[in-house]
């Protein structure tokens, strides 16, 4: 009865609801199918699946390039995020509170790497860093990933800091805290959710980066996506599915941890 009354009030609601269900079926189908295929027993992907096994998960550990590149990707994601935080957190704090008329222009400049086509940046970075003598190296990867990660840190930190009243810092300084103390005991705890959300984004983006990383590919600097790309160009066995499923599990786990500790309200905050 209540349902009927609601339907009479909003006849378009059920139609919209059905559309939304279909929409998410479209969004989730290709992801779910990969998870299912990961447990497939056969050497190839064919439906209906013949049997289930965990052999493709063993294959991840067996095939050296997967493991090696996973370590490279992990180091790269964390190192570039750390550098991006060291550069980006102070900058976004100053830009949010700064009254300079250049603040807006500088903020736009610092966020602009978000808008650039990554494949063009990758090619430009390769030539430039080679001219500097860095060439294909972990350091080159670190520099390029930092450029790309920086805007994500800045966006979330600025988003959180803008919502923080400056009263806290003023009170601290009136009560006698010096600047480092105010920063360490007042500002930093307040913006920590922004830093963590931004760092999570930056890590995920770095981990999934292919258009830049593949320009810097070598035995020592191949990242996981580069190895996966060259693997599926040659074979189509389900080990890529297993690897993807593990990767997604790690990402969801990281998201849940950050959400548990700091909340994710700020993650989708438009800035």
């Amino acid at each position: 009865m209540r349902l009927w009354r609601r339907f009479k009030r909003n006849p378009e609601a059920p139609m919209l609801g059905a559309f939304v269900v279909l929409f998410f079926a479209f969004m989730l189908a290709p992801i779910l199918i990969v998870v299912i295929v990961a447990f497939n027993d056969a050497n190839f992907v064919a439906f209906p699946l013949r049997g289930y096994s965990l052999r493709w998960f063993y294959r991840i550990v067996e095939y050296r390039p997967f493991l090696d590149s996973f370590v490279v990707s992990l180091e790269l994601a964390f190192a570039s995020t750390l550098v991006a935080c060291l550069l980006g957190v102070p900058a976004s704090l100053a830009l949010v509170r700064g009254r300079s008329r250049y603040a807006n222009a500088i903020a736009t400049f610092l966020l602009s790497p978000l808008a650039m086509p990554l494949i063009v940046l990758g090619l430009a970075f390769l030539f430039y860093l080679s001219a500097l003598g860095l060439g294909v190296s972990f350091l080159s990867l670190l520099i390029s990933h930092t450029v790309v990660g920086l805007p994500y840190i800045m966006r979330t930190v600025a988003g959180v800091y803008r919502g923080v009243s400056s009263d806290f810092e003023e009170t601290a300084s009136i009560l006698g805290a010096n600047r480092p103390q105010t920063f360490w005991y007042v500002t930093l705890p307040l913006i920590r959710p922004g830093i963590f959300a931004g760092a999570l984004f930056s890590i995920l983006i770095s981990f999934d980066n292919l258009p830049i990383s593949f320009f810097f590919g070598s035995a020592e600097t191949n990242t996981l996506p580069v190895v996966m790309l060259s693997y599926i160009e040659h074979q189509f066995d389900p080990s890529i599915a297993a690897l993807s499923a593990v990767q997604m599990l790690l990402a969801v786990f990281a998201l849940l941890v950050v959400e548990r500790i700091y909340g994710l309200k700020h993650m989708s905050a438009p800035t």
Partner: protein
Amino acid sequence: MTATVAAPAASAPARRRKAHSGALSIWWVLPAVLFLIVFYVFPIVQNGYRGFYPEFAGAGLEFNLRAYAKLLGDSFYLGVIVDTFWLSALVTLICLVLGYPVAYFLVRYSGRWSGVIIFLLIAPLLTSIIMRTYGWRVLLARRGLINNPLLDQLGLIDAPLRLVNTQGSAVVGLVHVLVPFMVLAVASVLQGIDTRLEESARILGANRWQTFLRVTLPLSLDGIGTGAIMVFMIANGSFVTLLLIGGDSFRTLPLLIYQQFNTTRDFGFAAAMGNLLLLSAVGCLYLQLRLIRRRGVKG
């Protein structure tokens, strides 16, 4: 008058604080700005040069327009440029048509489900681009989950449809990657619309459809604009999706740059194509800024 009086009257801590923030801005912003100038602006400028000095690596270093003449004079490459922008525009339009109702539902009807919907929108962003394209390849394969039921259970077709490596699969893959951005952009603007405006329209005699077309839709144009520019911009530069499930169906600038790097190795020409893409990105960025500024003035 008040200003001159106010300044000396400010308390000592207030003045000290002001001095603080002045010093703070420069030294806190400088490292990030310098880093981006050295490792982001310089590479792009160098890339700009390379387009005009196609034999950059070799001996003959002289300014010429050969790369651009090839890019803009040859009908094949003109077709590539048109294809790139046409594909992005098409993807943007589909994202809008699919995303708007979802954003509307999220803001107006989802209630306590809104958290779930936002999680489902963000969840695909947690999966690698390779995972998603792999999933589409499995679904669309010759004996995949779409062809098989059509062939065996329903018997609607005699031979498997060619679904992967077509223009359709390229568009589907790109829409799948980009539509969450559109939904989030439109939802954030819809959220800010005062529902009393819609109620007033209804009371004054407009029906639901008229209210939507005359009141809600115009008020959400900012969100549509922001989302559309963002989707168009990312679509322009995307190439992993096109490479893995688009095959050769669309030849776009990013794919050609990849090809130049891997096989042809004409780096001057690759740089020229890159510069064109950069130029379009800067154009989009400019439009986006104007939109934001306009909203700022209105709010």
